[in-house]
């Protein structure tokens, strides 16, 4: 089955993913591609503790995860793939993880970021990354939880200055 949902969410594994997206997509495996979490840490331990044992969790840096997807044994799982940033998503896609759709969940505020919806804040860099992904054939839709109506990201950035 492969990837049932690829999502950018700076909070990675949290309530919206576990309570809303997992049942909606029937995923049985969560893969987190994040360089910071690749090493053991409190944050990683807590994230793993938040997932019931019936769902597999794989956490690694972007390279490790890309190699993992090359393994055909992985095609049998229903994978929910999480990135923290648009840059990670682009890197992963260029390294051969073939997701065709990308969901924008939470992208938090920060220096130079414009708020485009309740949960999505983008800067120039993000827009560049996402445009590259779109050129490579990925459809990018912002949707916080399944009950929300999805919105194409181009519609979001219309009111972005510059």
């Amino acid at each position, binding site marked *: 089955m492969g990837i049932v949902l690829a999502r950018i969410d700076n909070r990675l594994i*949290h309530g919206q993913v576990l309570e*809303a997206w*997992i*049942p909606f997509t029937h995923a049985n495996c969560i893969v987190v591609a994040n360089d910071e979490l690749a090493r053991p840490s409190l944050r990683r331990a807590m994230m793993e503790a938040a997932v019931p044992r019936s769902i597999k969790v794989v956490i690694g840096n972007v390279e490790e995860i890309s190699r993992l997807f090359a393994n055909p044994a992985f095609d049998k799982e229903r994978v929910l793939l999480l990135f923290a940033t648009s840059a990670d998503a682009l890197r992963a896609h260029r390294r051969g993880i073939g997701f065709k759709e990308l969901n924008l969940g939470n992208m938090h505020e920060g220096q130079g970021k414009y708020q485009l919806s309740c949960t999505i804040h983008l800067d120039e860099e993000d827009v560049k990354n996402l445009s590259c992904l779109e050129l490579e054939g990925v459809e990018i839709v912002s949707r*916080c939880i399944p*009950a929300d109506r999805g919105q194409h990201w181009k519609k979001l950035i219309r009111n972005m200055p510059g």
Partner: protein
Amino acid sequence: MTLSVFFMGGLAGLLLGLDRTAAGQFMLARPVVAGPLTGWLVGDPLVGLQVGALVELLWLGRLPVGAAIPPDDTQVAVAGTVLAVAAGHYYALEGMLLILLSVLVAMPLGKIGQIFDRLARSRNSRLVRQAEADVTAGRTAALERRHLRGLIHFAAAALGTYVLIVVPGWLVVRFAGERLLPALDGMDGWLLLAFPLVGTATLLGTINVSRSLTLFAASFTTVLLLLWLL
């Protein structure tokens, strides 16, 4: 008589509305509690129990996940109870039909009433900014006061939602009730079924249990057969 029912209902709506998010969260705000409590205040706990049970069943599966705000089932239960009790006085009737009518009128109005809750939560942003200014200026004692002022916003929102359901709701119950109630006489058994149907459907659709449909089917059939045979 009817006026005091509406007034006591408002009191219940305010207090139970606070339990919903702002204070306590003892789940007094859940319809299955809020309904009978309101009913007890306005003199008919059993009507409240029936309203509360229907509303609870309908929204069993709706969870407050992340920043998403679920429908205000508390005020729907409170106002639904008030409408049902008031309508019972007005039509000198009792029974399931009045309860169903009240719940169905309260539901869509409750959805509109949610704007008050959103309003309260945006107003609270201002409190956080004021608290920041306080701390910067070294006024650490002002913090508690600022924080608790949010309770006023939430209380006002609860009352606002209540009024928004009860006032138009009462007009609808009075005018639509004249025609609808006689026409629907004897149909309440059928109408009642809609609540477990829709409630179950949404719960099964949103729960992350892999075999939820199988589990449900197995237990449903077993109990149905058992009750039928016994």
